[in-house]
């Protein structure tokens, strides 16, 4: 029998929209930084290849931005359409960062418009470069603000509750909650990292297709060095995120690690399966690692699931999401390191086909890490929408027809996704870099 439950459909629709938006948002946050790097190097070294790199990246970037903007508008309005009860309550406390985010959007949108249409308008190239700075700041600022909202959902503070109403609101305290520092920095760094890897993958594809122009080699070098820096940063902050969880959301960490009993010297379990009576099989056990992740010492006591009300524990399958994210993080950091070693050690070949192939896969893998990371963070907060205060089911709409809307939006995202890829391919296929280099007489 088909049981209509608006909560389930609201959750699915919210996840679809966010999962789709985050692809474009990640690109939107990270790629301006990469464009800025390329243009800056191009101006400083007077190297037209880097300038062309910036220009071509920007050409693809506008297309992804467009999809980012429309899906962002969707999720922004859907927050009210699907979670009216939640917005009514939480809106009292988190309106501030949401409001500030719109100013960040304004700055980003205005300067992106100017940047795109003024490539050859200024005599001093630096002026054009400077126009990109507000775009990059605006994008990172919007990520900053929206992530503080999400952090608030994980570690709400800055108010008192009386009869289900939030009173004595302190908007700034609500924004700067304990989850904020690690969450914001992890989200920003992982966006930069992912964008770097995606652009590196594009360069690697060209090189693998025997297009050996030095242009692609420069692109690969720039993106992979950036990728190394950002992936080390991501991993370090990821470690801090673990420590944050151990202190403020221990049930999320325990569920992610299948850590059933509170102990010190806790091992970290990687992979494996869970039997009916919660025994871990075939898992890789790293002794003491969980205690170290939680508090930098093997004597750190890590809370286990036995300490929590079973009703209030997130689903245990988030274990795999966490493992996948960390695995990808470690692998990609190693890959970037190997590439950089190839640059340093003269005997090694940084354009070895095997290495290039790995880099091609690394782009999509980084995006997968973003997706599973978010799903882990969000599902790991269940059953709460506002941790400890409001359950997800209480926040949802009571409307009929959420199911129909789910089908409509799914169709929309499918069509948008497919068209976006097709348009991007067409833009770059019809006008390959080599041709543009020739036409510009470089």
């Amino acid at each position, binding site marked *: 029998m088909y049981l209509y439950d608006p909560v389930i459909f609201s959750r699915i629709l919210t996840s679809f929209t966010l999962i789709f938006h985050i692809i474009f948002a990640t690109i939107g946050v990270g790629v301006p930084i990469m464009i800025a790097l390329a243009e800056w190097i191009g101006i400083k070294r007077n190297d037209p290849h880097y300038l062309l790199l910036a220009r071509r990246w920007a050409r693809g970037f506008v297309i992804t931005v467009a999809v980012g903007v429309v899906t962002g*508008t969707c999720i922004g309005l859907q927050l009210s359409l699907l979670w009216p009860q939640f917005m009514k309550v939480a809106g009292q406390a988190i309106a501030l960062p949401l409001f500030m985010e719109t100013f960040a959007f304004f700055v980003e949108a205005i300067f992106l418009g100017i940047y795109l249409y003024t490539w050859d308008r200024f005599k001093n190239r630096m002026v054009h470069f400077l126009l990109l700075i507000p775009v990059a700041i605006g994008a990172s600022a919007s990520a900053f603000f929206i992530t503080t909202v999400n952090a608030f959902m994980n570690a709400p503070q800055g108010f008192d509750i009386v009869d289900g109403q939030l009173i004595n*609101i302190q908007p700034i305290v609500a924004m700067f909650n304990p989850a904020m520092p690690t969450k914001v920095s992890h989200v920003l760094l992982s966006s930069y990292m992912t964008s770097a890897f995606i652009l590196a993958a594009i360069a690697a594809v060209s090189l693998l297709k025997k297009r050996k122009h030095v242009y692609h080699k420069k692109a690969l070098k720039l993106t992979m060095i950036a990728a190394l820096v950002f992936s080390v940063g991501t991993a370090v902050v990821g470690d801090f995120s673990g420590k944050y969880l151990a202190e403020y959301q221990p049930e999320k960490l325990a569920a992610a690690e299948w850590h059933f009993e509170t102990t010190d010297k806790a091992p970290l379990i990687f992979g494996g399966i869970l039997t009916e009576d919660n025994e871990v099989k075939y898992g890789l056990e790293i002794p003491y690692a969980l205690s170290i992740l939680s508090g930098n010492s093997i004597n750190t006591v890590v809370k286990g699931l036995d300490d929590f009300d079973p009703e209030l524990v997130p689903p245990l399958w988030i274990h795999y999401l966490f493992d996948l994210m960390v695995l990808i993080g470690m692998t990609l950091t190693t890959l970037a390191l190997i590439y950089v070693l190839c640059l340093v050690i003269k005997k090694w070949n940084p354009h070895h086909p095997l290495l290039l192939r790995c880099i091609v896969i690394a782009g999509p893998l980084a995006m997968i890490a973003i997706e599973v990371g978010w799903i882990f963070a969000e599902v790991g907060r269940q059953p709460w929408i506002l941790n400890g205060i409001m359950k997800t089911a209480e926040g949802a709409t009571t409307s009929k027809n959420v199911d129909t809307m789910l089908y409509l939006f799914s169709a929309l995202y499918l069509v948008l996704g497919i068209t976006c890829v097709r348009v991007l391919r067409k833009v770059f296929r019809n006008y390959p870099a080599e041709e543009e280099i020739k036409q510009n007489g470089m």
Partner: protein
Amino acid sequence: MSYEIIGITVLWIFLYGYMIVASIDFGAGFFSFYSELKGEKHQIHPLIERYLSPVWEVTNVFFVFFFVGIIGFFPDTAYYYGTGLLVPGSIALILLAIRGSYYAFSTYGSKNNKFYLFLYGATGLLIPASLSTVLTISEGGFIVENDGQIQFLYKELFTSPYSWSVVLLAIVSVLYISAMFLTFYAQKANDNPAYMIVRRYALGWSLPTIIASLFVFFAINQHNPEHFENMVDISWVFVLSFLCFIIAVYFTWTKQRGGLAFIFVMLQFAFAFFGYGASHLPYLLYPYLTIYDHFTNDTMAITLIIVFILGLFILIPSLYLLVRLFLFDTEYVKGKKE
């Protein structure tokens, strides 16, 4: 002024801004498509594209600003409108999403795709129609609360003469505002063939705009007499709006001062829009939501207002720069700079 009034005024100003910039964009989409059908596209399309390409994303942010802001200042609107408007809101969103992304696909990607252009033109009329129904709904009678359950009465909405009169006004105004703007832009660009075409559009849509507004006046009297009374009390505002209309059309008719004509169009709509808004108060949703009973807490209100003022210090210079580079730079408008 109370915080409530400041809050709603800020939001209304931005909604007004959205109405103007979005109308230009929506109407331009329709005209692009229409001129393609009539084989005049090559004459006006480059002009439209020159204006739209750098600014379309900014237009969208005006909209985002409005709905984020209204939930910030009046969180209960999320509850009533959010629950009630799931379906129409979602449909408007899907149309907006199609429009925005396909605009980008065709401008930056595959040029001259007729299907994209059709989507762009059609959504240009459907979106204002669907967004304008939110104003209709705010008049009351379409969202009702029964035993704590919010319900949206589709049948009432689709059979209400008032609702259709607003839709008509929205579509006609979009075409009028857009054509008036393009007339100014074409004049600035010294592009005479394009100028003649868009001026024809502008004059053609001017009278229907006034007729449609009269319809709305009559229909609102039927639907919400209380609101109508309030409007009559400040009828001088609407008279001013009409005067501005006359002046704008006069300038366009005599082919003078395109810039000034468009300023009068903006004034015409400013008077009408703020007159409508002021007479609507204190209700956000008749009779459930008022700006006084459903305001956010004072701390948040002050913080939002402070942030808003600080934000303006960034926003106004940036917008000024944008306008200078793409609207008032005659060389760019003429297409001599890319």
